[in-house]
């Protein structure tokens, strides 16, 4: 089966071509089936390869399959080739599995949309690029996927391009991502310059021989991390992700929560060999992750748009993943990536179901008491919220707890403190969201009649809810041999330090503590939004300045506008009107004008009198002859 690994990204590509080329003339049911089946086939093939892979002995679990040589130029060689190892298999499973569910959900969610075929072809193209990204065996092919997902993100955020805000958001995502891609590209150049190859299997063994803290590795990893910051929406390049909510909700679920934004985390984990040798980069990764986690979480408290709350929560959770990578717990980062994919996709799809049921309403202030109208959505949403808040035994509990645990035992007490506070805030704002949306008094517009979504949408919700509940059990801690996830992933990752063995009581205490933190967050949300709904107003009145600052997202967008966007716009304006129009056009037009002016005077010599010409000839002849004689 492993020889057919190239089919995994190919199926969605075929789906993209069919839907993109002839989808317009096909009925919607066919378009939806083609789109979902293409991704579903990839998922089934991935499962088959996964099962075969499990039979391999542990030390043989890294298989390269070269399809063909793509570029061969002197010492530079890049192939279209796939690397099957535990890391890429986990990513392939998560991406294709979650994508299949979201495709099925989309058939229901988008059934009234004009651009149905366009939507599915973009979605398939995205899955193709993402699968390429995670399964590539070299940096260059990975970069192709990296750019591909960026392109699809742009296309899908601006899917409703008639809306100015949507097309602006698409452009913003693309431009901000380019800043990161620039860093990633520099990193690849530097890797080739240093190691003479871009293949993972050649670069990493060579890199492992470098001394700890080597300058060139630090530079490479920092450049790569810049790429990850852009793609995974970390400080300071996170601004595009909340705006990306302009796209259709299933897109937010697929691209901006479950898969694409995790590409940065995946890339850092893939390059763990490089990162562990660059302590400065590791600290940078951990610091950016921890700061982003708490920063985005605080913004999440104040937002009223249901999707924006989830967007900031995504940014915050991605911060956790980077924190895990930064403290050397790459497996925990990937573990959280996987569980997060389950529950965050579920949260977004659930919010999509709410929006669908309310005919497009996204403001939580116009919701409330939806529990009885959307029971399936409510219960699945609640499970996902418990998972993200980190309540035992839901998926998020295990992964988040592992990250907190590792950041503490690796000695990053400050980061641990920040992450714990962020966990408290996460529980608070997520339950604020649940209480405002599903509980309390109904604030729904009386003309709107909420209704539950069709089975095409609720069945994926239920499947994801199942995963959000049990998904974390594969990484069960404490008991020896129970953490199958870590055991499976370990060969693909270079750990920072040797496993810290701490007593079981310490680990259990940590777990109880983080549970208590989450429970405190939930209780506070209950107090604020269920028991005393007037309490939030009072708190806001006490700290109006801070509230205003957070509510306006710390004015970061405004600061970026003033500090970066406007100067660039003004500079371009100057180059356009000042330099191009005046100097360059001026020089061209000026020379034309000068020539025109000269000839307007010179042409007076052309009198049209034959005899004046004859006289000129005579004078010329006399002059030439005179010169020849006289010299």
């Amino acid at each position, binding site marked *: 089966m492993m020889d057919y690994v190239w089919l995994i990204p190919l199926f969605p590509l075929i789906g993209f071509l069919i839907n993109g080329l002839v989808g317009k003339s096909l009925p919607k049911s066919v378009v939806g089936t083609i789109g979902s089946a293409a991704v579903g086939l990839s998922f089934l093939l991935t499962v088959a390869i996964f099962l075969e892979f499990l039979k391999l002995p542990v030390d043989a679990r890294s298989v390269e399959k070269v399809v063909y040589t793509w570029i061969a130029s002197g010492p530079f060689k890049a192939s279209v080739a796939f690397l099957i190892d535990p890391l890429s298999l986990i990513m392939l499973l998560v991406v294709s599995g979650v994508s299949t569910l979201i495709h099925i959900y989309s058939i229901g969610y988008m059934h009234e949309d004009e651009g149905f075929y366009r939507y599915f072809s973009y979605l398939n193209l995205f899955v193709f690029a993402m699968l390429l990204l995670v399964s590539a065996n070299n940096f260059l092919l990975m970069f192709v996927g990296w750019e591909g997902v960026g392109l699809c993100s742009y296309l899908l955020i601006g899917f409703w391009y008639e809306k100015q805000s949507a097309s602006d958001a698409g452009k913003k995502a693309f431009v901000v991502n380019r800043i990161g891609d620039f860093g990633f590209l520099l990193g690849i150049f530097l890797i080739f310059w240093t190691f003479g190859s871009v293949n993972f299997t050649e670069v990493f063994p060579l890199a492992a021989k470098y001394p700890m803290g080597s300058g060139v590795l630090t530079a490479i990893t920092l450049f790569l991390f810049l790429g990850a910051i852009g793609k995974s929406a970390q400080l300071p390049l996170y601004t595009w992700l909340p705006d990306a909510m302009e796209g259709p909700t299933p897109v937010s679920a697929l691209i901006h929560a479950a898969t694409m934004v995790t590409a940065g985390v995946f890339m850092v984990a893939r390059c763990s060999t490089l990162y562990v040798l660059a302590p400065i980069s590791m600290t940078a990764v951990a610091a950016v992750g921890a700061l982003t986690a708490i920063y985005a979480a605080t913004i999440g408290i104040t937002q009223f748009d249901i999707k924006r709350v989830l967007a900031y929560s995504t940014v915050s959770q991605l911060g956790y993943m980077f924190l895990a990578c930064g403290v050397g717990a790459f497996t925990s980062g990937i573990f959280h990536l996987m569980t997060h994919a389950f529950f965050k996709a579920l949260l977004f799809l659930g919010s999509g179901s709410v929006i669908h049921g309310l005919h497009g309403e996204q403001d939580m202030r116009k919701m409330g008491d939806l529990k009885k109208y959307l029971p399936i959505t409510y219960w699945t949403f609640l499970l996902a919220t418990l998972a993200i808040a980190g309540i035992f035994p839901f998926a998020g509990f295990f992964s988040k707890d592992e990250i907190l645990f590792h950041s503490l035992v690796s000695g990053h007490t400050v980061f641990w403190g920040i992450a714990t506070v962020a966990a408290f805030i996460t529980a608070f704002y997520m339950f604020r969201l649940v209480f405002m949306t599903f509980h309390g008094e109904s604030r729904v517009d009386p003309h709107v009649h909420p209704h539950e979504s069709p089975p095409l949408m609720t069945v994926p919700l239920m499947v994801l809810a199942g995963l959000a509940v049990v998904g974390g059990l594969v990484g069960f801690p404490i008991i020896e041999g129970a953490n199958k996830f870590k055991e499976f992933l370990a060969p693909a990752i270079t750990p920072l330090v040797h496993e810290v063995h701490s007593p079981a009581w310490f680990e259990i205490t940590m777990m109880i503590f983080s549970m208590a933190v989450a429970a405190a967050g939930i209780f506070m949300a209950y107090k604020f939004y269920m028991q005393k709904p007037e309490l939030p107003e009072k708190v806001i009145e006490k700290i109006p300045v801070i509230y205003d600052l957070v509510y306006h997202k710390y004015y970061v967008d405004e600061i970026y506008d003033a500090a970066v966007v406007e100067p660039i716009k003004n500079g371009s304006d100057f180059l356009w009107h000042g330099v191009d129009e005046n100097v360059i056009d001026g020089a061209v037009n000026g020379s034309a004008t000068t020539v025109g002016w000269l000839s307007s005077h010179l042409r007076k010599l052309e009198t049209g*009198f*034959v005899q004046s010409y004859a006289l000129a000839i005579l004078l010329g002849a006399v002059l030439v002859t005179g010169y020849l004689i006289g010299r």
Partner: protein
Amino acid sequence: MVVPVQYYLALSVALFALGVIGVLIRRNALVIYMSIEMMLNAVNLAFIGFADYFKAVDGQMFVFFVLTVAAAEVAVGLALIVAIFRNRGDVYVDNLNILKW
């Protein structure tokens, strides 16, 4: 009796100068044409004079070339003048000034 070369040249220069003056001051294209022919023949005369002086036939050969070319030129030139006359009713060069700025 031998005619000195200076006589030839003096006559040639005189004829050439008359031709030039004719070209420059007359307004009838036909007369200008005749003046051009006179200049050509003035040059021919100079050739003959030098050929006699240097006792070489090259000059005489050149005269034949000039005569043939002049004959061809006259044929073309007269045809042009006739065409102009048909078109405009006269051949005064000061009226033929449409080819100008």
